[in-house]
């Protein structure tokens, strides 16, 4: 088959793809439709994935289309907005760090959304559970017998597991909110560093700390996923006291064990005072 025949078949297929694209085109002007028809005829291999993919959801607000609208989604959206504003305000000040941390910052956004999705999944499980989240131990059954004892023990264990799941959910939620607050804090420090004439290295540290928050989220998620059911009640935590300095060397305590890896990173990289 010579080139002419190949081109003829190619354009024939292109015509079919162009017709399909025109039929699918919504809210398009005449110029856009003309462009679509010509380019789909000539470059139909690029348009075939468009045709074969699932049709797009009806256009709407970003919140409606993408994530559930709850307090976590709103908080994450708020933090993303502030983070975008802070990073764009740097305006070439620490371009090299922004470039090098681009992947981790993107991963951080994804990790926050994934963390919220985990919490929603736990919420769905707890809502579907017949035993309330604050389940009390099952009252002793009046029936006697080995079977009743086993059933009672199983139900008691199930209640305990649900209670633990609720505790894990609460901790996850607290971790997420604390991480978001941490990111907002760092964002505010970026703004402060920029307007107080701090050296570029401070902004670089702050951007790196924000990017490092993704490791904290991953560590928290890994810690939750490797949790083993306890035989007894949940033990209280001994809070760790970690100091951190602001760009102007102000010391303040960080009473939190919410995000160990981030706190550990900060304490190990805090500038000498």
């Amino acid at each position, binding site marked *: 088959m010579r080139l002419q025949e190949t081109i003829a078949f190619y354009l024939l297929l292109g015509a079919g793809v162009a017709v399909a694209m025109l039929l699918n085109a919504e809210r398009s002007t005449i110029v856009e439709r003309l462009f679509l028809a010509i380019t789909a005829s000539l470059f139909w291999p690029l348009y075939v994935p468009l045709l074969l993919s699932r049709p797009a959801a009806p256009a709407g607000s970003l919140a409606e289309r993408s994530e559930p609208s709850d307090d976590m989604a709103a908080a994450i959206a708020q933090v993303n907005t502030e983070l975008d504003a802070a990073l764009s305000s740097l305006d070439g000040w620490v371009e090299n760090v922004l470039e090098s941390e681009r992947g981790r910052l993107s991963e951080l956004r994804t990790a926050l959304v994934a963390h919220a999705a985990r919490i929603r999944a736990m919420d769905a499980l707890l809502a579907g559970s017949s035993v309330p989240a604050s389940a009390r131990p099952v009252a002793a059954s009046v029936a006697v017998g080995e079977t009743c004892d086993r059933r009672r023990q199983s139900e008691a264990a199930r209640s305990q597991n649900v209670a633990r799941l609720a505790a894990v959910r609460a901790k996850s939620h607290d971790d997420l909110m604390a991480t978001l607050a941490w990111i907002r804090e760092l964002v505010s420090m970026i703004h402060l560093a920029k307007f107080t004439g701090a050296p570029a290295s401070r902004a670089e540290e702050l951007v790196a700390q924000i990017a490092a928050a993704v490791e904290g989220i991953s560590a928290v998620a890994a810690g939750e996923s490797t949790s083993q059911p306890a035989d007894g009640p949940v033990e209280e935590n001994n809070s760790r006291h970690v100091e951190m300095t*602001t760009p102007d060397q102000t010391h303040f305590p960080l009473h939190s064990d919410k995000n160990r890896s981030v706190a550990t990173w900060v304490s190990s990289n805090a500038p000498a005072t």
Partner: protein
Amino acid sequence: MIDEILTEPFKLSESIPLAGLADQYLSPPSCDTTNNDAMIDAPLVGVVEMLLKDRGRLDRLLRDKNEQRTLIPRLLAVALSGFAIYGVVATLVLNAFWSTYHVWWDWVPAAHWRDLSAGNLVLAYTIGLIAANGVCLPSFYFYGLLAGVRTTMLSVAAQALKGMAAGALALVGILPIYMALALSAIVFPTPPALIEAWVLLGLALPFLAGVWGAVCLYEGFIGFADTIPAACRQSRQCFLRRLIVAWCGCYTLVTPLMIYTLWIHFAGMTGG
């Protein structure tokens, strides 16, 4: 063992003196992100601006299935415009050399501005560059699958077009420099070898600008590494990087063949 539960909530306002200062610098946050990332009704110029100033945002938009449908034709329009501009300029330069020195090289197919072959170079480069992208697209998709990336053919096409559009913008950016060099060869007496070198440089310009397009493609596609399972992400990411480079090399080999074949064919059709 369930991990410890937070006993005290993290009190930002009490423990962090910067909280009050932050409020002075930050306006009340808005949760409305519809105007930040949504691009359904953004004009073509918006896409060009994002390619030049905010490729991170463009990468985020290109990962949204709804935005891909809107952005793919616009990225294609940017690429076509850039390559068409280049084709016109390259045709003018070739014919200017011919008018001044009465030289047309045997290895350069016809693209004379006085006959039907005037559009040969424009069509060959415009169609060839984009058609080569379409030819190499399935291999790009399979390379991604090999690396363990969870993506769709549509996402791969979007990223490839983004790289092409970025390359087209870079090409338009360096065209004035090339024109200045070419005009100097027209105005001032120039040895034939140097003229041929300028012609060769002009015809190779899309491939030089394509390096920038490849960089943009790499930046966008490497972001898909977050879809690789965490257990093997570290090792697979290195493999993914190499596969992206390999695909760029494959595209670089296919494109000149495609362009030259089309140019020869168009020259035969127009009697050149």
